Each structure stands twice: as C-alpha cells, then as structure tokens.
C-alpha cells in the first residue's frame, strides 16, 4: 500500500511539473472548485523544477481577461474575439521548437465541439508541446446543430477530450465527506446556484489524477492538495469491510474469502448465553412463563386464576 | 347568470327599480361566473364572440359635447417637469401616494387601488399586468372598470376632457361593454330618486352636467360601515372625491363611449402597433392615456408569429420605456395563464418588465360549491377566486418582498369587484363574531 501511495505522489509531481511527457493535460473543474488554484500550483511546480527560460509558457484565453498573479510569467493572449483558425495560427506562431512549450488554453469549452479534435491535433505537432487546458463540467452541452443534423452520433466535447487527453486532473471541492457529486445536480438549481458558500477553497483541493501510461495502462489516484505548502497527500480509501466488499471480491480471486452457506449455518449455531434462559423456562413456545412468588395473592375462588 | 337584472339600472336615475329586496344578494349565481354576453364555456375566448345585442336604446352619443376641442388644444409649455405639470393639471382625479407622494390614479376598482400599496391608486407612468388562470374573464372585468374610470374622469368637466382610452384589440365594440356608475343600493337609489324629483332634474341634465351633491351622495354609498375605518377624514374624502368611482357591472356606461374618447389599435404586428401608439400619445399628450391590452397574446387575436420571445419582449420593453417617458400613460394588460405558462421565460420576463403583477386564480367548481354551502345564508360572502400578488409598483423595485400567494380573494359582485383578505370559511368562524350567528343557525 505505502509503496503505491509513494509512487502515486511521485507520478503527480512528475505530471504537474511537466516531467512526464503528456501532450494534453485536461483539467476538469466545476463552478464549485475552479481550476485557477491548480493552474497556479502547476506553474509553481514547473518553475521550481525547471531552470529559468527552459519552458515557453503561453496563455491563450477565451475566458479570463488578465493573468492571475500565480501565472505572471506566462505570455498572455486574449483570443476571445478570434475565430478558431486565427487561434490555431496564433498558437503555432508562438511555439518555440527548441524548448518545452506549455500552451495553456482557458477554457476549452469555448472551442466548438465540431472543431475540437482538429484544434488539438493541429497544435500538438511536436514532442515538446504540452497543452494544458480546463474544461468546465458544470456547463451542460446542448445539442448543437451539427449533432442534431447528424442524429447525434458525434461524441460530446467531454467524451472527446477525456478520450484524447493523456492526463486528466479532475478537481473536486475539498470536503471531508464527498457527497458533493450527488448533490451537484441540485446545486445547479437556483436555490443554491450563485449562493453556495464554502466552495472555491484556495487552500485545499481534492484532485483525481488519471494518467494514461505508455504501456496502455490507465492509473487513477486521488489526492488532497495543500496549496499553501504545495504538498500533495494521496487519499487512501477507507477500507471499511462492508457487504459490498464481498460482492467486489467474488470471481476475482482463486481462493475463497467469503463464507459459504455451510459455514453460515455453523456460525448461526454458535450458542449464545441468553439462549439458556429461554430453554429453562420457555420450552413451550410462546407460553407466558410465570413463577409464583410468596407475596402474590392467590385467589382460589377465581376460576381464571391459574398460574399453570 | 348573475347579471340578469342588467336592465334595472340602465334606466338609471329616471326610474330606479323600486322593488329590489333589501338584501343586495346575488340570486342564482352560477358556479362558473362569466361575463355578460359571453358564453360561459369559452374555448376561443376573444373579441369575436363579444358581440351582443344592440346597445341600450335611448341614450345616444351625447350631442353638443365638444370633446374634440380638448384634443386640438395642445399645450405649448416646455416640459421642464412633466410630472409636476401633470399633477397640477389633473389634480382633481389624482391622489398622492402615501409612500413617495408620486401622483396615482384609480384603476376603477377601489379594492385594487388599495392593494397597490400606495394607499391611493396606481402611479402615473406605470403598468399593471393581470394574469388569470382558466378560461374565465374576471381580469376582463377589471380592465372594463379601468376603462370606465377613465371615461368618468374624462366627463367630469365637459369643457376640459382629461382622459383618453387606447385599447389594443380587434374588438371595436369593446367600449360598449364598459360598466356604468354604481348608484347605491335600492334604498339609496330611492332616496336619490326622491331628491331628483324634488330638484326636478331631468336625466339628461344629470349626465351633461354632473351634480356634485349627487356625487357626494354616491360616495357615501360606497363608504358603508366596514370600509369606514380605511377611509380618511371626510375633508380629505372631499378633496379626492373624484379620485375613484364604483362601477356596477350590470349596467352600461351612459352615455356610450364617444369615438373621441377612445382609440382602438388593431392587433397587426408589434412594430405597427407601437407606431400607432406613439401617434396617439402625441395627439393626446395633454390627457391621461389609459392603454388597455385585453387578453394579451390570445391566439384569437395574435398570430403565432407574434408570440415569440423576439417579438413580445421587445414590445413589452418598449411599453415600459413609454411609461417612463410619458408620465401621462398608464397601462393595464391581462394575459391568460392557461395559454402561456407562468413557468415560461415569456411570462417571467414580462413580469419583470411590468411594474405591478397580480394573478387571479378563480376557484374550481367544487370549491365554489363548497363555499356556497358554507355561506348558505350569506351568499355575498362567497369569493370567486384567489388573488396572488407578485409585484407592486415601486415597492417591489425598491427591494421589498411582496410575493404573496393565497392571502387575498376576489369577489365579483354586482355592485363591485371586491378584493379582500382570504380566509377559508372555518377560519372565519373563529375570527369573526359576525359569522358565528350563521353557524349557530346551522347547528
């Protein structure tokens, strides 16, 4: 277990500091926990692990109008008014082939579904380019014209991106008990939309890292990220033995971890102390056991008075 | 039908029905209240079926009444303070709001005036949206009283007409259904008749130069006991005696609305309607203009093309803008909620653009039957539906939360359209000693 958590932390550090080759790092966020803090964290890790000027940092923004302090060493481009072709041209012109290139796109929701695949493919032309982009999952995808014309066979942006991405960082609000996802639907309704307190924490976030390895394997680790001291704590799932655990194990192991029917019978036959009390006096099932005591007043005349 | 005695009062002061019972109850009220002259079951409610028999004979359009004179004379005063100018000009029919002392005018329904929250009426330069569930047309009655009030104001002084009605409808007979003034209950009417005889006034005189004494008498008729605590001192009452009137929906406005008092704008397209409206406002800029929009977006008048968001919302927005640039404009509109859901963007956004929004929710038949049973001995206590308030002019805009549902009920009686606090009969039994007697009799 510990070696696994160890390796997961290392992997996270490698991913966040761009040491791990990954052409598309997809950050999934919601209005309850935005990616801004994570982007600053990534930039911090890159800066501390790379010598100055060895990473060409470019920020292409559809959404934000200015760089936040945590990203101040990026070159900022507002592309909100450009058409998709112009954006691709601009990005290509800013790539420096001799160093690592980090292309931050904020956010990919603004690229239309039909252009998405082409957009990403045209940018990732060489090995040393990494696209880091945010996709807001709070934004519902409505059927666009293309989809409705084509009877909805074209995949949604979300499926497309999670399929293409080599690394997915899903951000969740840092809450001790993560009922969050279940409630998200209701949170989006008016009662809570625009007025939910306690979200968008700037100190802690919960992060689910999905990394597609070269081997073809995909690994998934959850973390808690402390943004103040830049430390990551792998979240160890509380192993609470529950019934569902049994179901989980069924058919996966060559040996038996569950109790068989026979074992269950034996288990049920184990005599527990309180059974004896019942045996003593309650032989007749359902009978009311009553022992006569000296203080009791026995009335001989009463035809119904029969303790036995 | 509740309005079968219509003919009684039409003959007005000349011959008031003397045989009226002492209780002004409404006999034979059907469970589904409806508008006179309309079939109760109305699938395609609209102006088309509003045709009725020829109008009351014997009362033509008043002759020799120079209304056009008023239109022709345009004030050359520079509009430095339009509002002040209007207040001065229409002092007689306005009443300052108790909240911000802005001038208000009556909707034609005294109880609705009270509901508007200014302890007066509806502020000038504002709009009122009345939504109604079901296929009833109670809101139409409000609109007609709204219209009658304008006409009565207009006729206060024959020399200077002060009001013009604008109706957005295809029904050019709309004004023929406007209710006449309520002339008191039978006792009061008898008294009046005697007085009339003494004064030897002919009916014609009565209409052409309204007698102030008589008007006061009418007012007293309105102020019967239970309303008294809400009324101001008699002196103030006198100042605002022309502020509002009470209308009897079983009667007709008499004489009929003169073509110079009303402009019909046919439902064509919104651009054209707006243009015509601007023209009228220009012509009538020295009068109060009451814009009446009956059954807005009713498919009987409005084509499907006109009911899209891109058509309706800009039009309503323009109307709102007009109320801000024309202090002399007030708007009352009704919309059928059964056709346009309250959950829709359309209605919600319209509500946000109107200054005041109320909803009438008529009771279903079984509820009415229940109420009729509960108030067996007091049929006048039977309400016809609920009034929900969503917005009130200037109060809501200032941030007060006024959404009140199920707190008021309305009752469409012969003598007036009443709005009162709603209580289910059982509650009333506990609250009002008055009702206790009723219950005692029952048990």
């Amino acid at each position, binding site marked *: 277990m510990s070696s696994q958590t160890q390796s997961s932390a290392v992997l996270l550090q490698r991913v966040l500091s761009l040491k791990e080759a990954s052409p598309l790092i997809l950050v999934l966020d919601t*209005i309850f926990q*935005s990616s801004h803090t994570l982007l600053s964290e990534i930039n911090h890790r890159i800066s501390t692990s790379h010598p100055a000027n060895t990473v060409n940092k470019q920020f292409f923004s559809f959404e934000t109008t*200015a760089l936040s302090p945590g990203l101040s060493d990026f070159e900022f481009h507002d592309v909100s008014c450009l058409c998709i072709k112009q954006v691709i041209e601009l990005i290509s012109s800013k790539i420096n082939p001799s160093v690592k290139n980090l292309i931050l796109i904020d956010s990919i929701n603004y690229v239309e579904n039909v252009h998405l695949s082409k957009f990403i493919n045209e940018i990732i032309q060489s090995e040393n380019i990494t696209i880091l982009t945010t996709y807001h999952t709070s934004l*519902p995808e409505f059927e666009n014209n293309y989809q409705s014309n084509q009877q909805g066979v074209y995949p949604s942006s979300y499926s497309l991106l999670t399929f293409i991405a080599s690394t997915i960082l899903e951000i969740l609000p840092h809450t001790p008990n993560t009922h969050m996802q279940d409630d998200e639907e209701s949170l989006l309704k008016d009662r809570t939309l625009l007025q939910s307190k306690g979200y*968008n924490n700037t100190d802690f976030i919960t992060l689910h890292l999905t990394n597609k390895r070269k081997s073809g394997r995909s690994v998934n680790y959850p973390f808690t990220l402390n943004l103040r001291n830049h430390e990551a704590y792998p979240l160890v799932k509380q192993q609470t033995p529950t019934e569902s655990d049994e179901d989980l194990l069924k058919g996966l192991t060559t040996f038996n971890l569950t109790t068989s029917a026979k074992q269950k019978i034996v288990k049920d036959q184990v005599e527990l102390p309180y059974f004896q009390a019942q045996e003593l006096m309650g032989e007749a099932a359902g009978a009311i056991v009553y022992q006569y005591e000296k203080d009791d007043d026995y009335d001989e005349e009463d035809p119904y008075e029969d303790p036995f | 039908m509740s309005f079968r005695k219509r003919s009684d009062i039409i003959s007005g002061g000349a011959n008031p029905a003397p045989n009226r019972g002492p209780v002004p109850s409404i006999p034979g009220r059907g469970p589904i209240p409806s508008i006179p002259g309309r079939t109760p079951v109305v699938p395609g409610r609209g102006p088309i079926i509003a045709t009725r028999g020829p109008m009351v004979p014997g009362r033509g359009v008043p002759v020799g009444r120079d209304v056009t004179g008023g239109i022709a004379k345009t004030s050359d005063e520079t509009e430095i303070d339009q509002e002040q100018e209007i207040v001065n000009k229409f002092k007689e029919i306005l009443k300052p709001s108790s909240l911000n002392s802005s001038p208000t005018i009556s909707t034609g329904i005294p109880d609705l005036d009270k509901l508007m929250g200014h302890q007066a009426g509806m502020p000038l330069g504002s709009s009122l949206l009345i939504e109604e569930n079901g296929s009833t047309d109670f809101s139409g009655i409000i609109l007609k009283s709204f219209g009658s009030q304008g006409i009565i104001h207009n006729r206060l002084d024959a020399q200077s007409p002060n009001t013009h009605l604008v109706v957005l409808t295809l029904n050019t007979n709309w004004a023929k259904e406007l209710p006449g003034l309520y002339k008191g209950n039978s006792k009061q009417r008898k008294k009046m008749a005697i007085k009339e005889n003494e004064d030897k006034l002919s009916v014609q005189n009565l209409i052409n130069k309204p007698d102030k004494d008589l008007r006061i008498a009418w007012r007293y008729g309105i102020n019967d006991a239970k309303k008294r605590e809400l009324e101001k001192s008699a002196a103030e009452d006198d100042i605002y005696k022309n502020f509002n009137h009470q209308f009897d929906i079983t009667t007709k406005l008499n004489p009929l609305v003169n073509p110079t008092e009303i402009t019909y704008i046919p439902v064509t397209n919104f651009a054209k309607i707006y243009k015509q409206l601007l023209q009228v406002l220009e012509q009538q800029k020295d009068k109060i203009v009451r814009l009446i929009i009956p059954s807005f977006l009713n498919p009987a008048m409005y084509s499907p093309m006109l009911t899209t*968001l891109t*058509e309706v919302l800009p039009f309503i927005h323009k109307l709102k*803008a007009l109320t801000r640039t024309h202090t002399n404009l007030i708007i009352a509109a009704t919309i059928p909620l059964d056709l346009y859901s309250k*959950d829709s963007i359309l209605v919600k956004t319209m509500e946000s653009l109107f200054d005041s929004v109320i909803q009438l929710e008529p009771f279903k038949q079984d509820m009415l039957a229940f109420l009729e049973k509960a108030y067996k001995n007091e049929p006048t206590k039977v309400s016809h539906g609920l009034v929900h308030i969503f917005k009130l002019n200037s109060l809501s805009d200032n*941030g007060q939360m006024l959404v009140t549902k199920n707190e008021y009920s309305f009752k469409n009686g012969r003598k007036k359209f009443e709005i009162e606090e709603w209580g289910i009969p059982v509650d009333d039994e506990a609250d009002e000693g008055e009702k206790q007697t009723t219950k005692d009799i029952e048990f």
Partner: protein
Amino acid sequence: MTSQKQELHLFSGNAIIPHKSLTKSHLFTTISHVQGTSPTWLVNYLIDNALYDTCLLNEGQSTRSSVKSGVVFISLINDSKTYEAGLKKLGVDLKSIPQFQFIDLFTDLFTKVQPQEPQSIAKLFDSEVFPHISKTKKPIIFIEGLELLLLSTQITSIQLLGYLSQLTSLSKSLFLITPSDSELHDITTINTQSSRQHQYHDFLIRVLHRTNLNIALRPLSTGKAKDVTGTLTISRGSVPFEGLDGLEILEREYLYLVSRDNSVKLFFR
C-alpha cells in the same frame, strides 16, 4: 439568528468595495436576484460605496469626502431617475457628480436593437457604451438587464460574454446585476425548456467561472415575512481575488429587511 443590526462587509478589514486593492486586481461581482428580491437598495448602497467608499449601513462610514472612483452605470431596464431618486435618499446627488455616468440603454433599446440582427447589438455597444467609458481612469462599472438581450434576441451566450469581457477590461471592477429566477435558466425541468433557457443557463455558468464574488438576494424559502425581506449571501466566485494585504472575501449570509420607508437592516444568519 441574532437580532442585532449588522454591518455590510464583503471583504475582511470591514471593506465593501476594496478600493485600494482594485489598483492591483480586477474585481468581478455578480448580484443575482429573483422576483421579489429586487436588488435596487443594495445597488444604491454599492454606488455610494463605489463613489465615496462610504456606506450608510455601517457605522463610521457615513462621512463623504472626495470621489474615490468613477462609476459607470449601464442599464437596459431602468432609466437614470430610478437611481437618482434612490441615491438622493442616501444624500447623494448623482446629477452633480461628474465622475458618475449613466448609460441609458433602456429608453430606446429596441429601436436600436433589432432582435433578428445580432450586428445591431454589436453596434449598440460600439457606439453607445464603449466609447463613453474613460480609458485613462478605469471606472467601476455596473450593468443590469443584460439578460434581456439574451432572452429576446438571437444573440448567443458567448457573443454576450464577449461584451462582458470588453467591459471587464475597461473597468477596474464590474458588477453584473442579473436575475436568477429558475424559470429563466433551470434546465432540469423539462416541460418548458427552450433554447433561450439553455443560452441563459450557459451564460450564467460561464459568468460564474469568471467571477471573484457572488452576491445573491433571495426570498426566504418560507415566503413572505413581516420582519425579514430575504437573505443576502456573499460567496467566493471561481476566480480567487488577490487583494492587497491578504484581503479576503468574507463568506456570509445575512437576513435583510427593507422597510416600507426603504430603510434597510441586516442581521447575521
């Protein structure tokens, strides 16, 4: 609930609009409301605060000195009289303050905007709004009624956000006053869905991904009450606000009461 009257603060250090920090960071705030909780009273106080850094709701913040910032108010649903009257009650004569500018898009909005032509909206902003905002001294901008364009024309949420972006870059702080009635954007109810509802929902969520601060005015879930008008919730937006001296947003929920005489009281919840 404490019955004691409370003061209005949005940030730590008793700040409402953090004037000093605005030299460093842009502040984007939404003021959302529903039917029944019109935000006019709050907006009045915020205009006062934007101009003078005063707030009559708070003790010791009532003496006005010099104008701290220019204010541009853009409205598509009200004329200038609404706010002139409101601020007069707070003792501010907007007409006499040259730093206050009211851009009236209300009075003849739809004679300038043709619902079927999105270009007419571009023209509206290019001719009526952007040129009138000082480029040299960035003002605090308030805008209300923008949703009307989205609901009544063919414009898309992204196009509308474009104008909002431009306003953001022209201002040091932007307040977007917008309704949040579920009828307008609740896409979870199926019965009345329309593409405009989608657009407005999309618009709201995208806006929420850009804001630093969200202020929400809502009625009590129990309905009308005599002593409480509604709740005022202050919550962090998606974008962290980097103020000076560790300035932080104070997430809070107040109960508030707007009386008939328009006086306002706040209570902590």
